[in-house]
């Protein structure tokens, strides 16, 4: 009886404590960022790992998502004779939702899981502990560069994804299906507003997703049980929690930005 109650209490207290640790972890991470002014080379290396190496998947997925949007939009709009607004449909869906969200999800799978596994392995092989022995702060040396690199990379990847997606939509709509190219771009420019759509959608959303994705990935790695099962569990949790966090955050941000009260 007492044991059952204890378990019940633990199942509430453990996630709470974990949340608290996650926030403290985030604060320490922010505090360690200034170290990068002294060692910008660390940042460049991480930017290569999380950014440049994520480019292929982002480019290919962006192109295909845009092409699918072009096909689907055409198939539905052609009934109303409104194919000239295909540009608007493709651009708005990519800029407002699909670009930031899909980039963040792909980033979690491609880079977030690798971050978690890398940090977890460093912990398992006691590299982090030995750094501390040598009075090197792993937050400054290992975690902060990864976090900042991810924070910079996600918005850039989102921009690339969205731009390539619109290009894909253009290829299908104008080159393949024969929609008028002038109308495609003109309608798009008339309906896509810079501040409400591009800044809110691509920039703010991706910044928020970048913080969430990298924070979760690094925290899961840092908290991982230093065993092979622990690391694989942490990697899975990174992908799952990042996906949920990104989709939940997306709803929240969409309600704030585009919601009509």
């Amino acid at each position: 009886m007492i044991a059952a109650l204890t378990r019940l209490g633990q199942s509430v207290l453990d996630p709470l404590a974990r949340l608290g640790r996650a926030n403290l972890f985030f604060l320490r991470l922010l505090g360690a960022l200034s170290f990068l002014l002294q060692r910008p080379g660390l940042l460049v290396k991480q930017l290569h790992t999380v950014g440049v190496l994520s480019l292929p998947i982002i480019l290919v997925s962006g192109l295909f998502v845009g092409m699918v949007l072009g096909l689907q939009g055409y198939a539905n709009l052609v009934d109303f004779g409104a194919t000239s607004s295909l540009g608007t449909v493709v651009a708005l869906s990519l800029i407002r939702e699909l670009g930031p969200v899909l980039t963040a999800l792909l980033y979690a799978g491609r880079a977030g899981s690798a971050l978690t596994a890398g940090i977890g392995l460093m912990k398992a092989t006691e590299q982090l502990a030995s750094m501390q022995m040598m009075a090197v702060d792993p937050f400054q040396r290992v975690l902060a560069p990864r976090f900042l690199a991810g924070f910079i990379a996600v918005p850039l990847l989102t921009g690339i994804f969205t731009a390539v997606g619109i290009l894909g939509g253009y290829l299908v709509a104008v080159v393949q299906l024969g929609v008028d190219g002038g109308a495609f771009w003109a309608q798009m420019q008339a309906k896509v507003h810079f501040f409400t759509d591009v800044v809110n959608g691509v920039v703010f959303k991706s910044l928020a997703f970048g913080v969430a994705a990298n924070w979760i990935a690094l925290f899961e790695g840092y908290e991982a049980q230093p065993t092979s099962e622990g690391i694989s569990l942490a990697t899975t949790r990174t992908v799952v929690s990042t996906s949920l966090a990104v989709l939940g955050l997306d709803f929240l941000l969409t309600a704030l930005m585009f919601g009509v009260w």
Partner: protein
Amino acid sequence: MAKKNNLELAVGLFVVLGLAALFLLALKVSDIASIGEDKGYRVTARFENIGGLKVRAPVTLGGVRIGRVVGIDLDPQRYEAVVILSIDPRYDHLPEDSSASILTSGLLGEQYVGLEPGGMDSALKNGSTLKLTQSALVLEKLIGRMLTNAVSGDPPPAKTP
């Protein structure tokens, strides 16, 4: 050393590519070109009913876009809608007695302000008011009028046998 250079090069390329994509989105896809260059002169027009007209809607003359709606307000005394139009200074020779009407592009399209040039010599300038205006066509009112007409006589023209 060469390897490190390659890495830096790749990162630099990545950042440039990302920024270029953002610029492309800003310049090619969105309407930023029309932001910040609002140097147009302001003209006011009063309407009984503006229907679904929204701020940023285009102002056209002869189908050519010459400006946009920058403000919509209600006159609390006369209960009229006050629409402020910003017109591109390139078109500074519009006659002062031009008329404005609220039109719809297509059957279900958005509403815009269409100007009809008048015949006076004096031109519209910053702060002028358009005297002749025509309200938006409200579909419900139109249907209502059609129904009352149908009820109150006017039998359909008899078919010749």
